[in-house]
């Protein structure tokens, strides 16, 4: 029998996943800044401290490097920590432990250990929080072998991928777009997982493949709905995992549509779009391309405070529509 499905917000779905993980496995615990009585800066942990107590929902001091390192050490020695960064931007303070330690420990020790840590990063712009609280740094971590990096785009995936991350024996980094936290969607009760490393075709189409990540998935779907009325049939691939990337799903889609556009919020150059484009250029799908590949990404600037400028620095639905139209009609 199917589990009961309810409408939950993305934040509620994550909270439910963490609660299930803690109920199922006493090694699972939460660490982060103000995740206890405050409920987390974005109310993702909410009231979990009341259910699980301060021993398993641990407020750390404001010590990102140390905190992340403690989580890595606990994971190395048998626990299953889920570490919340208050903003993904503060990963920069903890890079040492993430990149030099968590990612490489198993390799350096010849497979004698593993580091089953989960780290959660509220990411992205759109809240008026300016340059140091609005970045999309997932590609930084995506560049590091040893890490798995995921970007769930829906409440359903947020829950299922978090549970998959907790079950995973290696470090998993989850980038959660802050503007998604209040987005609602169907979420089944109980335990289920959504595999890491599998993309999802969110809309089938014949004319153009849009590979999107995180909040851009919904924007791409919104654009596709408008384009449909114009006779342009868009396929939307939700990448979901950026490391390890599901190449085959993208290749198959491009072979079908012969056109590729990548849409993501992070700074356009040297990022996910470059990786997906190069991967296609290296694959058998290259011969199928009818037009140059298009990337829509963030502007080459830090995120500004002024709201109009802030919006202008990341792709919006009209930008996707215009770019898709030009691509399909062969306008360069």
């Amino acid at each position, binding site marked *: 029998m199917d589990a009961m499905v309810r409408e939950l917000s993305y934040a509620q779905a994550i909270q439910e996943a963490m609660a299930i993980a803690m109920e199922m496995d006493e090694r699972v615990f939460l660490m982060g*800044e*103000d995740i*206890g*009585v*405050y*409920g987390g*800066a974005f109310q993702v942990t909410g009231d979990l401290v009341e259910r699980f107590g301060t021993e398993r929902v641990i*407020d750390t*001091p*404001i*010590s*990102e*490097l*140390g905190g992340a390192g403690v989580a890595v050490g606990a994971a190395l020695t048998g626990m299953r920590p889920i570490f919340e960064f208050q903003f993904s*931007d*503060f990963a920069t*303070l903890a890079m040492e432990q993430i990149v030099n330690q968590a990612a490489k420990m198993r390799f350096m020790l010849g497979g004698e250990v593993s580091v089953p840590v989960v780290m959660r990063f509220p990411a992205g712009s759109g*809240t*008026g*929080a*300016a*340059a*140091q*609280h609005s970045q999309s740094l997932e590609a930084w971590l995506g560049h590091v072998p040893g890490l798995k990096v995921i970007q769930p785009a829906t409440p359903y995936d947020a829950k299922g991928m978090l549970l998959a991350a907790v079950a995973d024996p290696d470090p998993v980094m989850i980038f959660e777009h802050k503007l998604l936290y209040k987005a609602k969607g169907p979420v089944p009760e109980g335990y289920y997982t959504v595999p890491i490393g599998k993309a999802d075709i969110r809309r089938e189409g014949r004319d153009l493949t849009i590979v999107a990540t995180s909040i851009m998935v919904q924007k791409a779907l919104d654009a596709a709905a408008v384009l449909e009325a114009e006779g342009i049939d868009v396929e939307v691939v939700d990448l979901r995992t950026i490391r390890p990337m599901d190449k085959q799903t993208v290749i198959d889609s491009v072979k079908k549509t012969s056109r590729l556009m990548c849409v993501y919020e992070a700074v356009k150059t040297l990022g996910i779009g470059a990786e997906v484009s190069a991967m296609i250029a290296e694959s058998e799908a290259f011969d199928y391309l009818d037009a140059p590949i298009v990337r829509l990404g963030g*502007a*080459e*600037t*830090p995120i*500004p*405070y*002024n*709201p*109009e*400028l802030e919006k*202008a*620095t990341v792709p919006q639905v009209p930008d996707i529509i215009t770019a898709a139209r030009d691509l399909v009609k062969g306008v360069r």
Partner: protein
Amino acid sequence: MGTASKAVADSRANLPFVYRQYSAEQLKHVLYKMYLIRRFEEGAEDSYTRGLIHGTMHLSIGQEASAMGICMPLGEDDQITSTHRGHGHCIAKGAEVKRMFAEFFGKTTGYCKGRGGSMHIADVAKGNLGANGIVGGGIPIAVGAALSSKMMKTGKVVVSFFGDGANNEGAFHEALNMAAVWKLPVIFVCENNGYGMSTSTARSTAVKNIADRAAAYSMPGVIVNGNIFSEVAEASYKAVERARAGEGPTLIESKTYRHRGHSKSDRNRYRTKEEIEDWMSNRDPITLFENELREFGFIDDKGIEAIRVAVAQEIADGIEFAKASPSPHVSETGNYVYTEQA
């Protein structure tokens, strides 16, 4: 510097530091600026509620004596690094509220031309090297500014403001150590308002007083009541003298309290109403200073009223200025990423 005559000075001999050190005009101006900080933040809060300002903001209401006291002995050439809770520091160091409002409204006339907002407010011309979105981010930067001062022999003293929460970041410890080893002209000012967001110092910090940590870096650690202007100013004065004399850094812990929540998204579940109420009604820094000024005969009720009226006018004018100022154009999104070169 005090401008008081000998007779006046003698009559003040038993009064606290600032009343011996500074003129009545200077002290009245301090009261003016404390009100300016308070009303600026109330004005910003009100504008936020009305949707004129977006994002979030961190109000320092209740901490005005700390900002003013620390900046009192600083000259215009001296520099500060500030924090996410930095409006008071900015005004205390000499910023104009109209350009601060303009920044909050995202306008080109703002101190950061609408790019930074509340969390990055700065006034470089007046020596404020900027608020900071990163807890502890400004501490090593202040040490770097102090290194410049020493290497370039400018004689500048640098103050780094930060909160109690910041003293658990690695940057704090690394910065204090270097400042002490190199005897740099920097003053570390921990504004301990009891909490880093929801986490009390008792739950986050292994020492009872942040100032205790000074011992680990061989510098003086001074604790002051951050709500008493004179106490803060005296400690700052001594630390500035020490820094200018080439004797190195000081850590000042200014114990204070923020009346408002951490930011605009605080449910205030970690403090009791009684605690907040006690600080607001019994230890408000502006009330305490105003009462002293009155008691010692530096000002009367009419003088206080005049200050309040003048501050209200400056705030109203500042908001009008901000509203009337132009927004940057979206074509200018790429400006200032790199230095413009001819």
